[in-house]
């Protein structure tokens, strides 16, 4: 069992495991709603959009989470502006802004601030070098995600299931949506130190998308998403430790592997669902 006890005796690994568990709670719970509401691409784009914010945080003397949040909110505002009127579709605008943010970040990092090797850390995280502030932020989003899931499950369920009918059920759909998007933004920011701007989907989308393949009820989906996020994070950390890989990408690979296994295991059900789906949409 030394393959397990050795890494866990290192303080930097203990911190990393604690961070992964806290982020898994937030990522698994919110990820469920992100996947159900088809916000996965948006969530990924919010993560990428924080990159230029992270690049300028140091030189401008800003706290990294504040700069990242500012960049993420700027992205959301631009997206709302671009899609107003319906001339540009939401996914096109998201792709456009995501590319723009990465390009802006790259130029700022290479030519303006000479961030050099730090860019890797901003894009892919540094789970093995987390500070106290990072852990506190991870804990805060975990608590917020649990509280919001307890208080808002019915609102989010009714709104996602049937947006047109939800208000007549007495559900405050719009308020629920704003809270979901705000939590998404804060959770993305909390995940940046661990997995970086490009890999937030690893904890925020992949576990829930995987759990969706193997669960039938909402409760099972929420629980499985959290458990998978934690297990994939832990597995990726061990892999990174033993093979000397960067932990963020290692977790992403473990998550991708789990998704592939779940997709294969649930293939007959998947086909059934697809067949039923084609019968009703016209």
């Amino acid at each position, binding site marked *: 069992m030394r393959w397990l006890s050795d890494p866990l005796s290192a303080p930097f690994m203990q911190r990393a495991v604690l961070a992964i568990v806290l982020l898994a709670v937030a990522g698994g719970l919110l990820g469920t709603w992100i996947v159900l509401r088809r916000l996965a691409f948006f969530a990924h784009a919010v993560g990428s959009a924080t990159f230029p914010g992270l690049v300028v945080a140091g030189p401008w003397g800003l706290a990294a989470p504040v700069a990242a949040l500012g960049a993420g909110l700027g992205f959301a505002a631009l997206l709302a502006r671009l899609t107003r009127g319906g001339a540009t579709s939401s996914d096109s605008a998201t792709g456009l802004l995501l590319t723009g943010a990465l390009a802006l970040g790259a130029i700022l990092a290479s030519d303006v601030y000479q961030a050099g090797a730090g860019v890797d850390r901003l894009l892919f995280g540094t789970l093995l070098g987390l500070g106290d502030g990072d852990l506190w932020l991870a804990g805060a989003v975990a608590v917020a995600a649990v509280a919001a899931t307890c208080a808002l499950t*019915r609102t989010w369920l009714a709104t996602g299931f049937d947006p*047109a009918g939800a208000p007549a059920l007495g559900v405050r759909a719009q308020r629920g949506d704003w809270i979901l998007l705000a939590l998404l933004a804060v959770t993305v920011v909390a995940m940046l130190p661990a997995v970086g701007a490009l890999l937030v989907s690893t904890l925020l989308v992949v576990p829930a998308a995987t759990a969706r393949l193997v669960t039938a009820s909402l409760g099972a989906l929420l629980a499985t998403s959290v458990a998978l996020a934690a297990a994939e994070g832990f597995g990726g950390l061990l892999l990174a430790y033993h093979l000397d890989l960067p932990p963020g990408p290692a977790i992403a690979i473990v998550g991708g592997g789990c998704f592939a296994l779940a997709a294969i295991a649930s293939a007959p059900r998947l086909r059934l669902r697809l067949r039923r789906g084609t019968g009703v949409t016209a």
Partner: protein
Amino acid sequence: MTTAAPALQVTDLAAAYAEGPPALRGVTFSAEPGQAVAVLGPNGGGKTTLFRALLGELPAVAGSVRFDGAPAYVPQTERSRLDFPVSALDVALMGAYARTPWYRRIAAADRERARAALARVGLGDRAAARFGTLSGGQRQRVLVARALVQDARLLLLDEPFAGVDRTSEEAIMGILDELRAEGRVLLIATHDIEQARRWDRVLCLHGEQIAYGPPASTLTTDVLEGTYGAEIVLLEGGERCVAVQHHHH
């Protein structure tokens, strides 16, 4: 229950989407307890706008709406997400959301009500079935059951018979008759003139109110032409009318 005032009184109502011109105007009608009103009109004629105004989702830019309590809304089943992890019972339970504070579980009495509502629409044995695996007609019945759990005095039904199998149509008709007998007011949006003839009153809309009254005396050729414009086709040799719907893309 037998009050002199009508259960629903709409007076010179106009409603508009954000900053646009009114999508619907000049709507004046009233309904007594137990009356079912067909809301007839082409796509884009204002049926949905009227419902959204009655639900309070669109502000009335003119006129007034008077009734007691909040209405229930039965959407078309195609508007709901079929891939959501919800059972028929979960959907019926949504009818109890408005009276359940966010910090409480749904009351046992409401769970009973939801099961009873599913039984009433003939789906008592499908309570645990995933909503997306039910047939279109069964899903429509589940959405009617959800409205039963809401226990509203006024029900707004959006094309409840569109794409529904025969069994479900009969089940829904039976339930709607029961709801009328209980003194509830039903508004049933439809673009099917034959469907509109089955109800107590018909409200014809085409951006504005064209006519309102009992179907037999209201659905005249003039009114139908006003409602459907040039899209109306009158079949010779019978009183059947067919409204031809042009779908705009």
